[in-house]
């Protein structure tokens, strides 16, 4: 994953999408949603709705008492023998992890896929310091070998074919592999086994943290999460401060919501609760445990009463799966770690609207994301709030819409208010376009308008619209026109009288 972007150009990114991206993404999203539907039917729709409501109440309650639960968590992790660190921003988090690694002389680290570590761009900073970091989720391992970005948060390599992966294994690992998922998985298993055994440090994120007990909870399917936290002698977890839950009873709620909504599983293969380091040599597991609590803009999000609900998110990815925009552009277009509707509300808040001004607009506001959200985040409402922040600015940030579109908007409204100026403008465009015009089309325009014409032609400017409309009107002109108008008026009056009679209350009609 690349460094935090300077400016996310969503529209520009959509021009760079690989041809089969939409198809690959839609296969994944349809599969997850289909399995989800079946499971919710089995669970019971009413029971599911109660569970969602409880999930919402629970996450909101936790956010409203976040300081209390974070302090309790720190106390319990420390009691269990773990070390707790606090990171105000990405830079501080990277430095903390690097310091821990260097104190232990770490050369090789194995890692479980985690959004928080991608958000802070941890791999790059460790690699710059000479520490090899190996992603160990099969999909993440493949995209790391290929040097490409993940396209879906649950299945990162969904846009790659098995033939492409076989070629990749041949080029990067020197292994001739048949293009069969089972064989390719077997090869990756063998390769990564060695890495797990050799690594001096395991790095993870965390799906949840339980304040009451100090447990870090990992929800995984492949087993690499358990490998990374069991085999190396040192385990470092980087987790956003909003991931805390009050107690184990709360965990039971989110564990019923997350896998069902994410992948259509009742529970994932492995749900692991880790409370501090191992307590005896015999049980195995990391000898030392460090938890890095990451703020990186989250406390700022909490300050806005509308957008704070962004932090309810439990990262199931269902809002991606239902989103008509995401299904057509895939994850890369969103330009950062968090794609889809949740990315469209999270990125502008974590990176600032100056960087991610495009994203709140990358939505049709259809609301499917809010309907599928397991903790009922009002995503469309937050999108609107952020659009307003982009255009008008608010307490959190000033307006950041680029000056050109703003000026164009002001000029446009002025021209529209002056019919003569408007008419002059349309006449002018007809003349100006002459050298570029080919029949009814403008096939190529100079920059910046070429961003449109590179993909599709622009329609040539015709005569003044209102003049054209008068000529095209089916009413025509003169006597014929007057006759048609009279006929239309008569028909309307007749229809109005009939409608009024039908609408009279029956009682009055009986008396009349």
């Amino acid at each position, binding site marked *: 994953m690349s460094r935090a972007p300077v400016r996310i150009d969503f529209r520009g990114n959509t021009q760079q999408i690989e041809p089969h991206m939409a198809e690959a993404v839609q*296969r994944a999203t349809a*599969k997850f949603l289909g399995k989800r539907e079946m499971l919710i039917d089995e669970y019971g729709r009413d029971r599911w709705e*109660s569970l969602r409501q*409880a999930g919402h109440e*629970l996450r909101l*309650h936790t956010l*409203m*008492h976040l300081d*209390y639960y*974070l302090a309790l968590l720190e106390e319990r992790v420390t009691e269990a023998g773990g070390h707790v*660190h*606090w990171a*105000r921003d990405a830079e*501080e988090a990277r430095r903390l992890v690097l310091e821990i690694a260097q104190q232990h002389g770490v050369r090789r680290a194995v890692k479980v896929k985690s959004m928080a570590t991608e958000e802070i761009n941890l791999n790059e900073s460790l690699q710059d310091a000479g520490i090899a970091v190996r992603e160990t989720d*099969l999909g993440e391992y*493949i995209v790391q070998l290929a040097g490409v970005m993940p396209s879906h948060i649950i*299945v*990162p390599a*969904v846009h790659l074919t*098995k033939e492409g992966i076989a070629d990749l294994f041949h080029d990067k690992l020197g292994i001739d592999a048949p293009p069969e*998922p*089972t064989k*390719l*998985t077997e090869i990756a*298993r063998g390769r990564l*086994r060695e890495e797990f*055994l050799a690594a001096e440090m395991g790095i993870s994120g965390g799906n949840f943290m339980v304040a009451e*007990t100090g447990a870090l909870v990992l929800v995984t399917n*492949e*087993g*690499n999460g*358990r*490998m990374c936290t*069991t085999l190396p002698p040192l385990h470092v977890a980087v987790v956003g401060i909003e991931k805390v839950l*009050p107690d*184990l*009873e*709360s*965990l039971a*709620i989110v564990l*019923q919501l997350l896998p069902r909504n994410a992948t259509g*599983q*009742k*529970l994932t*293969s*492995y*749900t*692991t*609760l880790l409370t501090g*380091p*191992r*307590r005896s040599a*015999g*049980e*195995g597991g990391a000898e030392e445990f460090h938890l890095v*609590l990451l*703020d990186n803009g989250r*406390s*700022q999000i909490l*300050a806005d009463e509308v957008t704070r609900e962004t932090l309810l998110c439990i990262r199931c990815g269902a809002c991606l799966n239902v989103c008509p925009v995401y299904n057509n552009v895939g994850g890369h277009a969103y330009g950062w770690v968090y794609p889809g509707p949740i990315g469209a509300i999270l990125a502008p808040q974590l990176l600032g609207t100056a960087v991610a001004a495009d994203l709140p607009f990358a939505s049709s506001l259809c609301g499917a994301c809010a309907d599928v959200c397991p903790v009922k985040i009002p995503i469309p409402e937050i999108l609107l709030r952020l659009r307003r922040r982009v255009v008008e600015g608010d307490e959190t940030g000033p307006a950041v819409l680029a000056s050109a579109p703003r000026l164009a908007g002001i000029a446009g409204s002025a021209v529209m208010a002056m019919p003569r100026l408007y008419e002059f403008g349309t006449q002018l465009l007809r003349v100006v376009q002459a050298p570029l015009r080919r029949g009814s089309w403008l096939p190529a325009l100079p920059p910046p308008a070429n961003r449109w014409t590179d993909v599709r032609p622009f329609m040539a400017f015709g005569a003044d619209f209102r003049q054209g409309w008068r000529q095209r009107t089916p009413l025509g002109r003169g006597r014929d026109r007057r006759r048609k108008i009279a006929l239309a008026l008569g028909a309307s009056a007749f229809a109005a009288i009939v409608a009024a009679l039908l609408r009279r209350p029956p009682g009055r009609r009986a008396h009349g």
Partner: protein
Amino acid sequence: MTPQTVTARTEILDKVRAALGRTTAAPAPHVPEAARIPARAAGAREVELDRLAREITHLGGHVRRLAGPADLAAALAELVAAEGVSRALLWQTPALRALGLTEILAGLGVEVMPSDASLRQIATCELGITGVDAVLPETGTLVLRAGAERPRTASLVPRVHLAILTPDVLLASLQAALAESRDVACATLITGPSRTSDIELTLTIGVHGPKALYAWVLETGEA
């Protein structure tokens, strides 16, 4: 705590409090009733055991019901032959030891790892045998608590995981299972064998964790 930790901690907690409109730490809050759900009610024992078997089988695991410890030797002989087992890692809890697994395996020519085996040695095992602390029929989940005689690696590193349980570990709800999982450094909920759909969404069993999961229910005796 280092000065950095103190400063960062104070600053983050202060920002959180300011965002929530407070200046001091919140008193211990009470989780509202609206944020709770009722626990699933237990069904009859046989219904629950059938459900457990159905769910685990559906996930690609193998469930077998054994009338008692006497049937273990024959079942293990079958498993060892079918999976080509030459080395095994076992939990050494009193209940499992009482079943005489080490002796049965030795009789089958299987080498049992000593309790101080290194990770490299454990990585050569084809079979890991564990007990089970709780099972959840609704999801087909086995709950394993780690401890001195209960290595985490036994259910993770070998290619085959055999979990031996007795019906008395049946629990109805996730809440109950989690409540029993406090006070250990590691509790793992295992729901089917290791799996992935990362390559073209094709379900593949056995990525990093075990490829084969066997759950044997011992009708009598202890495990």
